[in-house]
């Protein structure tokens, strides 16, 4: 019994971290209607930046956010100007292939500059775990989970309550009508893309104490992020949180009861099943998967 509770709790916490990694992707998809195939490499950049800040200044990874989040925001702006903006009104293929090319270039630039070595940072407080009755949890996992929940909640509140959030929701619903109502849609696209990228920066800082980073680290995580985003419903933030927790729990349970390698297989199969029976995801917009999105 204790084992199951332990697995469930650590699965949920892992899921929260996965969710924050996926929210940027789902936000960008919701507003711009594009899938950023370089999302994993954004995460790789964030993790390397966090690693560099921690290693060269000695601060802990959560303080490194002050540097990494603005860095990724600026990087998002640059990528938007150079690659996404020229392609956003074209057939979705163009943006798919352009971001794919960016992903290859970034991944290999990391290989050239940083070599294939694994980079990690020393554990916080010499790797203490927290005890809650029979539960043992890694401190980094708990902090990461708490930050994820707070950020996700704050973001949802922001989208629901603020004027900018209202503009974002209007653009998600109907881009043309939003433009006619005087919303500066191109500006909103830029802002959303950069904010999505900044969220990846946050995710990188939460993840660097838990995982080591290497040039192809993005591919592993981005596949999980795609599963989460589709599971929750593309463009839905609540969905990303729910999807993240589902994947975290599945991974944690299957990693213990079945072999970890098959755990991966599990969530890809879940992904395909969701695509067959509920292609809009658990909380997605109706009909989103059936129309060719950016026609």
């Amino acid at each position, binding site marked *: 019994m204790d084992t199951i509770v332990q697995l469930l709790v650590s699965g949920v916490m892992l899921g929260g971290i996965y969710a924050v990694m996926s929210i940027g992707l789902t936000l960008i998809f919701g507003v711009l209607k594009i899938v950023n195939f370089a999302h994993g490499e954004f995460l790789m950049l964030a993790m390397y930046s966090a690693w560099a800040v921690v290693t060269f200044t000695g601060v802990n990874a959560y303080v490194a956010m002050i540097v990494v989040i603005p860095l990724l925001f600026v990087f998002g702006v640059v990528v938007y100007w150079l690659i996404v903006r020229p392609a956003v009104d074209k057939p979705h293929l163009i943006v798919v292939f352009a971001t794919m090319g960016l992903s290859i270039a970034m991944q290999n630039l990391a290989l050239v500059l940083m070599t294939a070595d694994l980079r990690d940072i020393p554990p916080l407080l010499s790797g203490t775990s927290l005890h809650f009755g029979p539960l043992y949890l890694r401190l980094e996992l708990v902090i990461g989970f708490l930050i994820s929940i707070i950020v996700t909640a704050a973001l949802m509140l922001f989208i629901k309550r603020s004027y900018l959030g209202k503009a974002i929701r209007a653009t998600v619903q109907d881009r043309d009508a939003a433009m006619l109502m005087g919303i500066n849609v191109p500006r909103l696209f830029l802002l959303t893309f950069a904010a999505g990228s900044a969220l990846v920066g946050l995710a990188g800082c939460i993840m660097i104490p838990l995982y080591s980073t290497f040039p192809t680290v993005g591919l592993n995580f981005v596949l999980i992020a795609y599963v989460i985003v*589709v599971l929750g419903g593309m463009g839905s933030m609540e969905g990303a949180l729910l999807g993240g927790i589902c994947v975290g729990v599945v991974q944690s349970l299957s990693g213990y009861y079945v072999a970890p390698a098959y755990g991966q297989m599990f969530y890809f199969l879940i992904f395909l099943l969701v695509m067959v029976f509920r292609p809009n995801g658990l909380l997605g917009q109706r009909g989103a998967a059936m129309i060719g999105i950016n026609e």
Partner: protein
Amino acid sequence: MTAIPGRSRLAFKGLSFSKAPRRGAVSVIDIVVLALCAIAAVSINSQYAGEIMIRTFLWAGLALAWNIAGGYAGLISFGHAAFFAIGAYTSTILLLAWGISPWLGIIVGALFAGCAGALLTTICARLRGPFFILSTLAAGEVTRIAALNWRSLTGGPEGLEIPPVPSALDMVFKNQWPYLALVLAYMVLMFGLSAWIEQSRYGYFLFATRDDEDGAAAIGINPWAMRVSAMALSAALAGIGGTLYAQYFLYLDPTHIVSPDISFEFALICAIGGLGTASGPVLGALIIVPLSELLRGWLSQSASGLHLVIYGTVVVVVILYFPSGISGAIARAWPQGFGKSFISNEERAL
């Protein structure tokens, strides 16, 4: 017996010729390029050049196979490595376990790969755009994990090895010539098939389904059948390429042959060469594969991976500024050639 006039015109229009790459016609450029390939293949004198050429022709054939689904039917697949691997594993397992010749295994592998393609498209029948792409990526990953872990069948992470005993019956040869001839034949066959599809009734059905599914359904085309058949055909042809790969390298490494990188490579060759044309994937492969092999050779001492940085950047620039690829750019530069490729068609619609 007299042929029904209307029907025979559509079914047996035959290939026409044009100067520049054009949908439904074999262009002068294609013939020159293919002839040059054959001449180059006959006149090579070094092992290294032969290796690069084999890889180039094989990849051109595979990209042409990908293009049938991705270009003609608009079914962008990032999971084609799965079909490629199904072909490779099927013929290899048949050979190792039952001693069945790969000449037969190549057909069985193609059938299996084709069934897998049909199954995937049936499962994802309702999905469009990014959703379809992500599903193919997931299907590729499922195949990769299966190949890595189903030890009794695939040999697990150690992979499978074909004993290097030369025998024409087992499609294992001592020197490069037969392989070079095989992959060249594969490429030319794929090209011929693609050029035929472009001008056939079936090809027009595919284009119609791709460009306007509701419109196609309204004039009596079954979009579902078009999507499934195009993906099945494309997957089966990729499976054939898989067997050729297995017989040439004589070793199947699951982390390499089922990796998403391979799927991306097929797609990107088509994107750079020009999607939805028969010339595009050939031109794309002839430029990209040797170039990246040579760059890898030159740059590997100073910085491994640098060639892929260049490659990625080239992809971004080409796709943003020449969305109809190299063949589209040639068609536009060449008067009288009405280059119609996938993206330029859609661009006009916008």
